[in-house]
Structures are given as C-alpha cells and as structure tokens.
C-alpha cells in the first residue's frame, strides 16, 4: 500500500474501534447494572463499575417463582416451535431444493411463503386472538408454539432450501446408483452433509421464538407469561427494579449469545438469509 493510504487506514481502524466501543458499552452497562444494589443505580455521576457488587439480582431471577416460571415457559415454547418448524421446514426445503421444477416451477410458491413475513405481525395476531378464543388456545403454551410457526416456518423452509441447494445432486445420484433407497440416501448421504445448516436453522428459529414479544404479550395471560412479557411488569411499589430487570436481561441474553459464539459461521449465514459466508 502506498503512503497516501495510511491516513485512510487509521481513520478506518479508528472508526471501527470506536464503533466497537459503542456496541460493547450497553452490553457492559447491562451487566454493570445487574450487579449493583438499587441505590447505586441512577446516581450522578454514574458509577462506571459495579459498586457495592452483589449477585442478589441474578439470584432473584433464578429463584423468584414468577421469573423461573417465565423462563420455563419460554424454554418449552421456543423448543416446541423449533422442533415443529425445523421438521416441517426441512421437509419442505428439501422438496423446494430438489423438485423445484415440479412443485414450484416459477419459484412463486417459495417466494410467497417468505413474503408472508412481509406483513406486520399485528396483522396476523389480530384475527388469531379471536380464533384462539374460540378454540381455547389463548393463554396456553400450545397456542404460542403454533403461533410462532407464522414467522419460523417460512424462515426454516427458506434456509433449509438454501442449505440443501449447496449439496450437489450428484451425491444423491451416486447413492442411488449404489442401490441405496430414497430413505437410506437421505439418512446416510444428505443428512450428514446438511447437519451444520440444520443446526444453525434450529438455533435461529429457537432464538427468534425465545426473543418474541408482541404475540406473547397479546396471547398469553398469567398462566403462560414468557421472559419477554414479564420484563415490562417488573415494577415494585412504584419503583422500577432496574437491577432485577437488567439481571433478567442478562439471563435472557446469555443463551442467544452463546449460540452465536458456538455456531458463528452458520448463524451469520442464516441471519443474512444465506447471503453471507464469512
């Protein structure tokens, strides 16, 4: 690189570093707040480190019956909807990848499937609320599990199609030549190759369900509150319990963050709908 680039270079690096700081600061502050007693929160000047360090809030989140209940509900809902949407989505994604010429010649069906995500979620939940009222699905775990398919099923179908597309058809053809049945071919040839993609798809579907708020807020009541629906209501005696809320935020944010770190490449590919391969 010639010398005139070094100015650019240091400006670019400085900007990236500054932005990294901007991204990291609120994450740090969440932790900082969760580990302080309430009387050190909202002081001036702000305490930049967890002064009066205490794990009380974290312990509260992990022992308070309401919080534990919400975490359990969210775990069940997110896992249930993930299993359903990945099974259905993988089957459909495989068909869209391998039999596109037969079931979806113009690519309209798969696009139409994805385009259901273009309508705002409130458009779906408004009629569903009354349909669920009739079916007795309001305030049930099953109701939310099914409702979360509205955004997860198009996602898993789309992503799985993309992951199947990356496996050459010739592998399957070779297996057929070797006398494998259709099921054997899928189990022994396709499945091992698609597994990383499948895992990433599962993780993303799980994270989206874990993080969802609007549907849960409208459909659930006291029986099935989720992690996101109790966060707006953690107020006691007119005082916002910031340390407990941030402790809750930490607990809520840990699983998705670990998932991101563990499955980085495939998660990033999935987040960008298959467009980015780092």
């Amino acid at each position: 690189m010639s010398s005139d680039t070094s100015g650019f270079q240091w400006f670019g690096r400085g900007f990236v570093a500054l932005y990294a700081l901007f991204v990291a600061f609120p994450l740090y502050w969440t932790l900082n707040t969760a580990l302080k007693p309430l009387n050190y929160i909202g002081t001036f000047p702000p305490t930049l480190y967890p002064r009066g360090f205490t794990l009380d809030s974290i312990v509260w989140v992990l022992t308070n019956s309401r919080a534990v209940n919400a975490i359990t509900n969210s775990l069940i809902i997110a896992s249930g909807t993930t299993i359903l949407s990945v099974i259905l989505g993988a089957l459909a994604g495989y068909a869209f990848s391998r039999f596109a010429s037969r079931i979806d010649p113009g690519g309209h069906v798969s696009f139409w499937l994805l385009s259901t995500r273009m309508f705002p979620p409130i458009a779906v939940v408004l009629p569903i609320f009354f349909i669920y009222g009739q079916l007795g699905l309001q305030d049930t775990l099953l109701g939310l599990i099914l409702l979360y398919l509205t955004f997860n099923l198009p996602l898993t179908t789309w992503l799985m199609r993309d992951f199947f597309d990356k496996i050459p058809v010739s592998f399957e053809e070779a297996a057929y030549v070797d006398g494998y049945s259709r099921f054997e071919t899928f189990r022994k040839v396709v499945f091992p190759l698609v597994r990383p993609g499948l895992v990433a798809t599962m993780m993303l579907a799980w994270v989206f369900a874990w993080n969802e708020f609007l549907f849960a807020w409208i459909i659930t009541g006291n029986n099935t509150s989720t992690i996101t629906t109790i966060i707006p209501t953690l107020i006691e005696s007119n005082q916002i319990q910031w340390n407990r809320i941030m402790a809750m935020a930490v607990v809520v944010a840990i699983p998705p963050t670990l998932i991101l770190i563990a499955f980085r490449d495939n998660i990033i590919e999935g987040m960008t709908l298959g467009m980015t391969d780092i």
Partner: protein
Amino acid sequence: MSTIKEDLRRRLPVVDRFADRDLAPYLLVGPTIVTVFLITIGPMLWSLWLSFNRWAPASIAHQTPSFNGGANYAWLFSQGRFWNSVANFAYYGGVGVMLQVGLGLFLALALYNYVDNKGIRIAMLTLFAVPMMIAPLVVGRIWQLLFLPGGGTVNGILGMLGFSAVPWLQSRWLGLTAIMIADTWQWVGLPLLIIYGGRASISDTLYEAARVDGASRWMQFRRITLPQLRNLIAIAFLLRFMDAYKFFDKLFIMTNGGPGTQTELPTYFTYLVGFSQFNIGRAAALTWVIGLGSVIAMLLFWRSMNTEEMA
C-alpha cells in the same frame, strides 16, 4: 470429472427415476403449505373481511361483526393520529434505515480493507452480531435505562463531560431519535454482515487491474465496489425496511407512544385500536393499509433499482 457426472446424469436422472406420478414432493411441502394457510393466510383473509365490518366486542351495540362498507378505511384516513404515526414512520424508517445501511456499508468496508488481522476481523463481526441476538424488547429496556431523563447513563456521561442533560424520550423527535439510536445499535450488524460478505467475494484482480490503470481510491470505490455491491445493498435496505414498519417492541417499552400519542408508529397505533379500544374492524383496516402500503413501497423500490440498472 464433469464428464463422469454428466454421463451419470444422462443415464440416471433423478427426475426420471421418480416419475411424474411420484407424490413424494407434494407430501414433503404439503404440511408446510397447509400450516401456513391455517395460521397466516386464512386468518389474514378473515381479517380482510373484518376490515369491512364494524366490530367492537367490548361494546354492547357492536358485539358481532356487521358490514359497514369502507367506513373503517374512511375513519382511519381522517384521523390526525394515523397521519402523525405515518410521519413518525417516515422519519424513523427513512432516516433510521439509511443510517443503518450507510453505517453498515462504511464499517464493513473499513473492516475488510483496513483491519489486516483475521482474528480481530472475526471478533469484530461477532461483536457486531451480538446485539441482533438479544430480544428487541430487552434492547429497548437497556436503552431506556441509558436514556432515562434523570439519572440516565447517557445524560450522566454528558454531564461528566460538562454538557447539560437532554430530555430524551420526553418529546416527539428526541423520543424517536432515541429509539432510532437503540435500533441502530441493534441492527447495524445485518447490513454490515451482508455487505462484508459481498465485499469478500469481489475478486482482487478487479482492484489490481484498476490500480495498474492508475484509478484513485475513490474511483475504485465508485466503479468497482459500489456496482458490485449494489444488489446486496438493496437487499439490506429491503430487509431493514421490512423490520422498520413492523417495529413495535422498542417503542412499546421506551416511550409507549408518548408523550401522549406523539411518538406512535402505525403498528403501535393499530395495537392500541385493536387491543386497547377493542375496535377490531378498524384495527383490521389498519393492518391492511400498513401491509399493502409496505408491499407497494417495496415494489416501487425494487422497480426503481432495476430501471436504474438498465439506464
């Protein structure tokens, strides 16, 4: 290699093997199509019908839906509150999405071009992706704490630097701006990752050839990078735009539409009409106006992208 493959394909094409009568593909997609119809398309068609009805289950007079023509649509277009929310969206969506994509573009290129250490690059990409994994509602809560008018961290830090406190979240434009900052913090990663991936796949030979020809840095950006990334930038725009008009969680937690109704966005207004006033017909009309409006906006955007390409 390729001859073997082609030979194989000629002899044993999968499609021939599983003749047209084969039902497997339909059995594979069937459950998904049926499910999507039952939980999305069907209910939405019902809500389209409801949008032409007066239905307010909480009032005695309108407990069951009764057809009222286009009255719901006439009502909402006459509401100052609706147009206020549209104007808010124009600001939040327009400026916010441009900010996110612009920042993402700049960061992606800076990271790719100027940070040589691969480990640092991967660490940065991962860090920028972390906020995307956190629940938007939780992100809203975190930024609400940072922006608290009295005793908030942002104002605390501004105070330590000698500035006076800013009444974040307490007026229309400052409230929307605060929400926009929170949303940008969370979502810059998406355009950044898309564009970074695109930049990484541009062949270096293009730049080498340009340098040999003496093209300046700006010319390389203008003539190679931008055209090559054009479609990906457009997709990043679309994806962020799609999220912007669905936007709900952060607004709900950070300003609740307030002060008063000043920071309401269309989806939030819909939520209040539907689930606080229980005026279902009107809320259904609102969801269709928002949905169709966004589809039209996206089609126009896509068309203008394509005509520009031809020009």
